[in-house]
């Protein structure tokens, strides 16, 4: 009897605690539900319709998978898909390698106070507004900017107009993204570096290992979880790239810098074709989902180990 009572009291207490917890969670859960989860399902639904934004809410016909079929013969979509993939494949590895090297150099060769200053300086672009960054880089890429002047000084008679050139525009945007993301990655790497066990390096020193050997056989393997995390977040953020394209090139010249999010934006808000834009958004969602699943599987394997 007494036992029963105790168990009941215990249960009530747990329920009450849960209620309090849910109470605190409610505001953000509600926000998440209203602004992320419900819209996600709506856009899934809209992607199966021919909804035109100008026709008003609810004025749509169900077209099943027509939007998804039409995508593949649409040069703007195929170009945006291709550009997005190239963008991710190029920017992610380059920025990882660069940031790892720089983090190791800062960690190994800078004094503690200097290292802090350098890291903060490198981190700055990460907290800058993408539009401001774009404005600065547009000046740098100008016909009279430092890059063109440097190329001219090196004997290039007519350097390209980077942002208006069919071959250079996408690489130019990638360079900006790599630069802007570097500080954040260095920060993460630096944090992991300081947490690495020093005894391995000490024994390597005793064995006479060179700087490169220590870097390659100790640092790189030990940083593998960090690298994995940065790869996944890097791919996700490069799939979502929009601001640089929108401000610096507007997808041009031609469709050479169209990215998926930029295409979603133009289709939805310039052409008012919400159904079609949602279909592109669903494709992007599936791509992000695939990456996220890879991460989940990887993480759960790690936990089992």
């Amino acid at each position, binding site marked *: 009897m007494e036992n029963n009572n105790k168990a009941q009291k215990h249960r009530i207490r747990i329920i009450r605690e849960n209620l309090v917890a849910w109470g605190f969670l409610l505001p953000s859960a509600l926000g998440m539900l209203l602004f992320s989860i419900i819209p996600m399902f709506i856009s899934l639904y809209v992607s199966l319709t021919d909804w035109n934004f100008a026709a008003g809410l609810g004025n749509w016909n169900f077209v099943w998978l027509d939007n998804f079929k039409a995508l593949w013969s649409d040069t703007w979509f195929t170009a945006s898909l291709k550009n997005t993939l190239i963008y991710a494949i190029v920017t992610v590895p380059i920025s990882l390698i660069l940031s790892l090297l720089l983090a190791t150099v800062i960690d190994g060769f800078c004094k503690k106070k200097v290292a802090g200053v350098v890291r903060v300086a490198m981190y700055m672009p990460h907290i800058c507004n993408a539009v401001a960054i774009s404005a600065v880089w*547009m000046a740098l890429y100008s016909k009279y900017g430092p890059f063109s002047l440097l190329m001219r000084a090196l004997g290039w008679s007519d350097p390209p107009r980077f942002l*208006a050139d*069919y071959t250079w525009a996408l690489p130019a945007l990638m360079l900006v993204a790599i630069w802007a993301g570097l500080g954040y990655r260095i920060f993460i790497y630096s944090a992991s570096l300081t947490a690495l066990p020093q005894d391995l390096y000490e024994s390597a020193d005793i064995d006479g290992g060179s700087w490169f050997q220590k870097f390659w056989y100790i640092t790189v393997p030990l940083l593998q979880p960090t690298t994995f995390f940065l790869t996944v977040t890097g791919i996700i953020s490069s799939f979502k790239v929009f601001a640089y394209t929108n401000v610096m090139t507007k997808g041009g*010249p031609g469709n050479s810098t169209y990215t998926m999010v930029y295409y979603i934006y133009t289709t939805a808000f310039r052409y008012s074709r919400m159904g079609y834009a949602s279909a592109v958004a669903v494709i992007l969602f599936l791509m992000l989902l695939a990456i996220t699943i890879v991460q989940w599987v990887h993480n759960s394997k790690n936990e089992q180990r």
Partner: protein
Amino acid sequence: MKKALAITLAAVMVAGSLAGCGGGGKSETTAQTTAAAATEAATTAAKTEAAASGETEAAAAETEKEWYGNDDGTPVHIRLWAGVQPEYGYQQMMDNFNAEFKDKGIEAEYVMYKNDTSGNLQLETYLSSGGEVDVFVGYGGRSNLQKRIDAGLLLDITDYLTESNFDPVEALGATAMSGYWFGENNDRVYGLPTQATNKAWMFVNVDMFEEAGLEIPYDGWTYDEFLDVAGKLTHGEGLDKVYGMQWTFNYGFDNWEAIMRAPLYPYMTYKDDEATEIAFDDPIWREALEFTKKSIDLGYAIPYEDEISEQMTVQSMYLEGKTAMAACISQLRLVLDDETYPHDFKTALVPGPVPSEEWMDGVHNLHETYASAGDLLSIAANTPYPDACWKLVEWYVKGGSMPLIVYGGRTPAYQHIDCDEVVDMMLELKGDNLIDVQSLRNYLTLDKSKVLPQVSGSHAGSEISTMFKEEVQAYLQGQQDIDTTIDNMVTRGNDLIQKDIAAKQ
């Protein structure tokens, strides 16, 4: 809109069949002129009907009302909202109005709002809550106006028009009014277009012309004459280079396209009235594209990629004397403002070049090819002083807006604008150092009386303009030759139209 379009289209078809299916440019022009006359007749017929009902009251109201203020003798206070800085003419205009209506009990105040998404939202919020806006200048053309009518924010001013014997077609031109009739019978007015810019006109630097010993082409010129002149105006290298021409591609295609497509009007984008077949394979387009590329390849015009990558503007190029000519008449305000943008040369306004002699008359010298009039003047539905507001609107449209052209370079749509007075005001304000008075007179007195139907894309219109821009850019930057460009434009354009038609079924 649909109805107005239907009426005009029907008129054109009738006229077209009367004149026979003219193939060449000239005979088509006759067909179009007949069409214009027919349409005008149709529009006027619709309007007289509206006018007839109000005629008796109009006669009664002939004696001007003297007092618009409150009964206790205090004046009413109304606010005019517009999206332009007060110093570009609106403040001057308000001062003039207040001086004139001081004894009639109206006090008007100018409020500037920002013509962007949030600014328009703010305007609409105030319009629906009431008390802050009485009269306002709206932007965004018919679609924005329609949205506000549907929301019940605007006062139907048709009765005021009839009461004061104000015929908007006669006053503003059928072209300007063509898009702005509403209601079941297409005879209601909710906003009057007050500004009509002919984008096929351009700026030329008179001083540079004189230095090079060239004559100002007041009456227009051909592509060949233009290239010849542009070549003579081009000189220097590198940072010191002075170009002959700035096509202003950085502002989008508006200005360049307005000049190039005018000979084809109204079939410049589509071959048919239903907008189902692309017209970019017309020889006129080929000629226009080749001419533009030639102007760039010869080094006379600023290359497309430079304009885009350097974000070149009228301020940064034309007003700095880095180009002798620029196609950007909508920025007339900058040319007249030598305080903010110091420059010490005179500008003349001239029509853009045409393919050959046969196009010289009536392509750029008329307003008929530009149906888009803007700056829509409307009265808020919930204003407590509709009579006073109407007085302001009428005064504004009938010449009150003259400070706007003098201080702000906004071309009034009003057909009977007192050109001498504008010129006098301008001379008094700026002297004749900034603008060539004769050319300004030419520009202000363009015939705006005719109306031509505008075939606009109901099938994937925005996609087609994006496609057009991409292909033209690729051609101008040397990525593809002229044949590929035209082929691509036709195939891609028709493909977009067909896809859209299929989707709509």
